[in-house]
């Protein structure tokens, strides 16, 4: 395990395990937590007792900061982002923050332009355009 100092999201210097883990976008978490809440309400009568503070705060947060609300849109977003050989972490940051320009995308995820694999600006722009189309027609 690397030390805290070695880890820096901006340079994509993060523990190996993290690169392999399944990252989720806020909108995906919102769908999962909605469902979870429903299940719990069915399972026990006093669902309020089962809800931890962490769950509630996270649920509120993802509802507020989800850029895409409906399930199909969320699926499409992941599909578009995963066409571009992004790390899971990069994919989720882009999906969550929803940058509008190439410049902004690179400022949000500097590792898009490092690590020697440098995504073309055109490819990034196409990706952002596709995303904004989904947002528009959702």
């Amino acid at each position, binding site marked *: 395990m690397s030390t805290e100092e070695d880890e*820096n999201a901006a340079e994509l210097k993060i523990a190996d395990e993290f690169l392999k883990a*399944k*990252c989720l976008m806020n909108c995906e978490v919102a769908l999962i937590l909605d469902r979870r809440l429903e299940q719990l309400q069915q399972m026990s009568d006093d669902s309020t007792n089962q809800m931890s503070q962490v769950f509630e705060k996270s649920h509120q947060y993802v509802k507020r900061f989800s850029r895409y609300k409906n399930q199909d849109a969320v699926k499409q977003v992941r599909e578009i982002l995963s066409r571009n050989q992004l790390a899971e972490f990069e994919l989720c940051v882009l999906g969550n923050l929803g940058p509008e320009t190439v410049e902004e995308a690179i400022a949000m995820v500097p590792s898009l332009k490092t690590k020697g694999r440098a995504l073309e600006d055109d490819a990034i722009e196409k990706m952002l355009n596709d995303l904004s189309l989904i947002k528009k027609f959702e």
Partner: protein
Amino acid sequence: MGIGSTLGEAVGYDYLGGLMFYQLLGLRFTLFHLLLTHISIKGMVFLEVEMKGNVVVPPDQLDPKGLLLRKGIILRLLEDIASRKASKDHGYYIAVTSLNSIAEGQVQELTGNVVFPVSFNCITQKPCKGEIMVGTVDKVLRHGIFLKAGPTENIFLSEKKMEDYKFSMTEEPMFVNDKQQSKMEKGSKVRFRVLGIKWMEWDRGFQMLATLAGDFLGPI
């Protein structure tokens, strides 16, 4: 993606094995003790992680009418995760999404406890230094702003880390940028970079420092 799987569906055959074992004992458990294996995961985005744990069931908690085992296990697991709240290595535990398996239990000779290894998926979130994220303004003070983002509260954005913004106290306290005509007040959404993180053991949570130094950061 975990959306489609439910706790009930996911338990499967291993659950049956566990149930038969219980029926042999003619007992039922209530106490659920979980030992998570060590996984190190970084990043503030939400993660779905498979975790392994042990369920320790003391013999006096076992009971012949043990048919609600599965429900019991699920509820205890959820309760356990809720009370655990967070850890330094995993970050915040937000929700268990599926119980993948319950392996056959083993009796501990000295205590008579029964230990069930279980495997489940859990959504976690751990803040990571350098990451850009969004949060909501919670409190505005003269020296800076407190933000919250999901389970992480106490994210401090110092006045010194947002140079173009000046404190203003008209009706409501807020930070204003005259050049860009933008402001941050209670309830505003702000995009910021994580400057530093500290694990607070007494609170079982993280404290963070934020900065607006960088392009495209600030209120959105």
